[in-house]
């Protein structure tokens, strides 16, 4: 029998990575189902009801099977190497964010001391992947979608980063676990409710800007189906399309999870006596709630125009974020 102890860390890491990928897939499946249900009920419909008995719960699995056995089409005039590479890049950029999400105090891929900064950094990969996909498809819609997406994501990265700096400043650390630990003991300790109203504004700005980061409505210009067919993944099908899809839902989870972590107290319960419920449930619950709000917004608001999108970013979010940052900085300094 081989002594396992030297390899224990390695085994745990591998198991964690596999678990995260599985979790991402399951979450994507669940989220597609939820999205349809939310859309249906908001529009006084029912959503999928047939596949698998109770409220069509097998529908996402049927879709997944369809995607997996679908023909993988590469356009003849596409730039084949880049076309094949792009989905992986986008997927990696999305999956890398999961490494620092603290599901619980001990359930975290790696508690980097630059956790928040790391997440902002790895999302850059998604931008490049999308540009690559748009270019390699050799399709005008893909190209438009990619250009829009890149412009939008780069612009909105600034308000996102500035809003995330506020809890970072209050906690004095960028490590996810320490940020969450600073919010222990009841919802009045959550960063979203401390230093009212600054952190609340920061939370709202973060949430809206993150919608633009993950190309969700009302900022879904890159894949606006009524104008651009499907934006940068117009030409993709089958498993490669599924990669983009997974990445998109993974991104949704990551941005919501970061909001839950840095603003909403991560794995802590809103009331201390509820801490008997395990942390991951609270964490995933808060994240799922934010994902639900994203869907709710999607079926509430129409799509913005490009100029409106840029106006909102540069003329509203950015000045408010800066003012917020200065005031919270002052608050942190005065408080000592």
């Amino acid at each position, binding site marked *: 029998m081989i002594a396992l102890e030297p390899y224990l860390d390695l085994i745990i890491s591998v198991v964690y990575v596999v678990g995260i990928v599985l979790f991402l897939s399951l979450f994507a499946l669940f989220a597609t189902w939820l999205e349809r249900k939310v859309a*249906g*009920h908001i529009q*006084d*419909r*029912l959503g999928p*009801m047939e596949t698998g008995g109770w409220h069509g719960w097998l529908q996402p699995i049927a879709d997944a099977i369809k995607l997996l056995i679908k023909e993988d089409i590469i356009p003849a005039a596409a730039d084949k190497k880049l076309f094949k590479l792009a989905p992986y890049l986008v997927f990696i950029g999305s999956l890398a964010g999961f490494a620092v999400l603290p599901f619980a105090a001990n359930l975290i891929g790696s508690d980097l001391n630059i956790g928040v900064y790391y997440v902002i950094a790895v999302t850059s990969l998604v931008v490049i992947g999308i540009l690559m996909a748009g270019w390699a498809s050799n399709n005008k819609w893909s190209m438009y979608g990619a250009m829009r997406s890149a412009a939008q994501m780069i612009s909105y990265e600034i308000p996102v980063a500035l809003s995330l700096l506020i809890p970072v400043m209050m906690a004095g650390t960028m490590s996810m676990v320490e940020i969450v630990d600073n919010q222990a003991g009841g919802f009045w300790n959550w960063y979203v409710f401390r230093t009212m109203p600054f952190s609340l504004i920061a939370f709202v700005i973060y949430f809206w800007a993150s919608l633009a980061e993950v190309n969700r409505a009302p900022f879904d210009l890159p894949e606006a189906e009524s104008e651009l067919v499907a934006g940068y993944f117009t030409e993709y099908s089958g498993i490669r399309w599924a990669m983009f899809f997974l990445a998109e839902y993974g991104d949704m989870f990551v941005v919501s999870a970061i909001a839950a972590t840095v603003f909403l107290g991560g794995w802590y319960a809103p009331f201390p006596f509820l801490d008997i419920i395990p942390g991951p449930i609270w964490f995933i619950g808060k994240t799922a709630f934010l994902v639900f709000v994203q869907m*709710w917004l999607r079926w*509430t*608001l129409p799509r913005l125009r490009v100029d409106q999108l840029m106006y909102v970013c540069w*003329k509203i979010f950015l000045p408010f974020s800066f003012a917020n940052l200065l005031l919270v900085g002052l608050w942190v300094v005065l408080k000592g």
Partner: protein
Amino acid sequence: MNATYKYFRDIYLGVTTVSLGMWITFRHFFMPTITVQYPREKLIYPPRARTELRNAIESCNGCLQCARACPVEIIHIETAKAQDEDNAGNMPDGKPRKLLVLTFDVEMSKCVHCGLCVEVCPTESMHWNNEHEHVTFTREELMRHWATYPPEEVRRLQERDEILKAEKAKQAAEAAAKKAAAGDQPAPKPVSKPAADGAEKPAQPSAAAATPAIEKPAKPESGDGTDSPQKENGKEKA
């Protein structure tokens, strides 16, 4: 107003309108859905909904009005005069049936759902049946047959009808000949006269003999039409 005011007002409006919109969609989230799970539950359509045509053959008097009204000419009807031997029975309003409806075929595949046949039907036998699933596996099935006579019966009745018709024509010819022999031969003239003058002078006072001559060819044609006003009255009563 000035730009600063507008800027902050826009932000305020943005926040409030988004909140309002989210509140509205949130309420709709909990409203009962209007979806009908189709194959299991079906909607009852309003009475005038143009769904699928159906002819209640037992109340059809074979008047051909629907066939004439149809703009795409997809209703094909063949009738035969009812005889005593047929025991044709009564119409739903109690009057004896005068015509046997031998075939009543509708090509539903061509139907434009204009509803004119339903409008004109004097007996209300042509109606919308409140179902919309005319889906069939073959195109032939879209040809709807509502008459219940088997083909050989149809052929027999048609032949009988022709014989009867021929006899009747013979009788009519004889009667006409008798009449012509009996009278002082003014008959052909008034027949042609009103036909020529009718366009110019519609009201001819001295055409006492002419009116039957005009009405005679019209009579057999609208022989069943005579009871149509009654039927229409009955329809209005119903």
